[in-house]
């Protein structure tokens, strides 16, 4: 399809607009945007962003629900030469403020329903940086903000002369320190990865991809990027809260590709049951972020009888590590497969020596998909990126433990950090503990992930109170709800008189994990422990 090599992510938009023109690129909330429309709008927005002062390499944040305007914003920023950072619309003011300050975003594109969060986020800012220019979709010009719609009337932008080695995006991910880290990726990283993913997923421009995941999540963002790369069609939804709506969308839009995380699949299978029939149009189902439980697989096959089901594993730092060929799924139900095309994986022991087959080792990754590093965080970057085989080569240490069988198939063994995976989202216990420690009356707090059928892992918080304090579960939940995204709010809160600690004063999380199953429910557990 291509007439010249794709160097930059947006090159495929120009190409798809040239080849497919009036074909639908994105369908969302009743709007249908063709490739020609998407190109034209994103170029107009790019010109306006440049007029508002966005320079090549400047970061521009997109804080919107999954929508056509979010898509136009993303390509508009690239066409202007900017660096895209998509922020999850569930983000609360404090974290939004942190991310804007950390990235030094010059522009923030948002929508009218989120403006309240933006305003509160800008108030809590304590840094010296200039506040970003704010562009609001769904509203007219107001004092201090620009109307998104009004910015779509400008002419062509100046060529920002972006190179393939320039930064394309900061993708924020949870870190074990509690502060989210911006994963820096270049155009080159992304364009390579798009080729690799679309190759092994066997996708084509005939595909119609349904995306329910936030565009702030690399898995969600790549559904959009793969769509445009191929000249396919993306049907963009705002979440998976309404299974009946998802079902209707799959049928009406003749969806062929359905990416999900285990919570999406259990919600869909759980609520819609067997009476709602099969999705025969779907020919590709992908799962990542957390392991698909073997019990779910037969039901998934019944629901999607024509689909190849892909089990995959990855981390934002390299987008994707490996995938299992669907034809191998029955032979190796526990495996997450082999490295994605054009990349390499290997296992090392903690001293850096190769391990034998079937021996556990730390997974390392090589290839053009590896991030450049974390924005503004050289020390944390150094923990993840190690010297490679030549001066320009770097190897990503995932810190996850795997074993590899004689034929080279990978099996997940465990993590070396205490990151929690809930609903497919990576959550740092420290981030939640920081919020808990800030609540008056809380002396000590520790957060662990416990197995949960629907969520993968559920978040359980253990709290000890300051002597004499009476802080309640409700007050704690409220404080969490105000400061943390919904998926980070603890499902269970358990009060203890003392948290178990090591001699050096560190909370023994292992002891906390072992405590729980002895007791039948949160309430009785809390009661028995407090009174024992």
């Amino acid at each position, binding site marked *: 399809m291509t007439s010249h090599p794709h160097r930059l992510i947006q090159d495929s938009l120009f190409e798809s607009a040239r080849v497919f023109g009036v074909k639908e690129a994105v369908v969302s909330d009743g709007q249908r945007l063709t490739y020609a429309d998407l190109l034209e709008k994103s170029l107009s927005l790019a010109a306006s962003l440049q007029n508002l002062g966005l320079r090549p390499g400047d970061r521009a944040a997109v804080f919107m629900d999954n929508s056509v305007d979010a898509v136009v914003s993303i390509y508009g920023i690239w066409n202007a030469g900017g660096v895209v950072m998509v922020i999850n619309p569930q983000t609360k003011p404090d974290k939004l403020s942190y991310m804007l300050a950390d990235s030094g975003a010059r522009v923030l594109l948002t929508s009218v329903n989120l403006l309240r969060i933006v305003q509160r986020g800008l108030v809590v800012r304590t840094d010296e940086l200039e506040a970003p220019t704010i562009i609001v979709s769904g509203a007219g010009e107001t004092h201090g903000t620009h109307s998104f719609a009004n910015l779509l009337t400008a002419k062509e932008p100046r060529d920002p002369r972006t190179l393939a080695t320039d930064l394309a995006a900061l993708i924020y991910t949870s870190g074990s320190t509690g502060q989210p880290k911006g994963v820096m990726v270049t155009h080159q990283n992304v364009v390579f990865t798009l080729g690799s993913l679309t190759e092994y997923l066997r996708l084509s421009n005939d595909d119609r991809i349904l995306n329910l995941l936030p565009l702030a999540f690399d898995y969600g963002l790549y559904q959009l990027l793969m769509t445009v790369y191929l000249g396919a069609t993306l049907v963009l939804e705002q979440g998976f809260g309404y299974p009946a709506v998802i079902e209707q969308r799959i049928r009406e839009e003749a969806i062929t590709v359905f990416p999900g995380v285990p919570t999406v699949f259990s919600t869909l299978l759980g609520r819609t049951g067997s009476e709602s029939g099969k999705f025969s149009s779907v020919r590709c189902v992908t799962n990542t972020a957390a392991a698909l439980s073997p019990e779910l697989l037969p039901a998934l096959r019944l629901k999607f009888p024509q689909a190849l089901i892909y089990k995959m594993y990855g981390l934002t730092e390299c987008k994707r590590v490996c995938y299992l060929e669907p034809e191998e799924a029955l032979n190796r139900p526990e495996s997450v497969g082999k490295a994605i095309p054009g990349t390499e994986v290997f296992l090392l022991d903690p001293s850096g020596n190769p391990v034998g087959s079937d021996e556990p080792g730390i997974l390392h990754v090589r290839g053009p998909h590896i991030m450049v590093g974390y924005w503004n965080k050289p020390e944390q970057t150094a923990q993840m990126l190690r010297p490679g085989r030549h001066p320009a080569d770097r190897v990503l240490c995932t810190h996850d433990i795997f074993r590899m069988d004689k034929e080279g198939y990978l099996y997940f063994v465990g993590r070396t950090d205490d990151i929690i995976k809930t609903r497919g989202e990576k959550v740092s216990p420290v981030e939640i503990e920081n919020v808990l420690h800030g609540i008056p009356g809380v002396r000590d707090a520790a957060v662990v992930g416990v197995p949960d059928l629907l969520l993968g892992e559920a978040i359980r918080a253990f709290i000890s109170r300051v002597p004499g304090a009476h802080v309640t579960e409700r007050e704690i939940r409220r404080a969490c709800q105000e400061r943390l995204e*919904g*998926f980070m709010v603890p499902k269970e809160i358990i009060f203890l008189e003392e948290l178990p600690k090591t001699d050096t004063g560190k909370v023994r999380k292992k002891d906390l994990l072992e405590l729980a199953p002895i007791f039948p429910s949160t309430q009785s557990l809390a009661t028995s422990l407090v009174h024992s």
Partner: protein
Amino acid sequence: MNSVEQQIRCFICENFFADDATLTGEVSLTRSGIIDSTGVMEIILFLETKFGISVPDQDAVPENLDSLNNLVRYVTAAQRKAS
């Protein structure tokens, strides 16, 4: 006995910490960030246990569940149908 509206309002404010003063009947619960995807399931569970109605899959759509007004209309109709 509280009205259906009061009971639902109270549940949303208590559980999702929505601001009672600004929670109008038309506010979209998902788009205003009051609830997320799993919040929808919590609301369904609440309706089923509190009002003794069953929410079949085909009814779990924003037109029935995504605002206070929609919820009240849906519960009232379901109760009428059941009686």
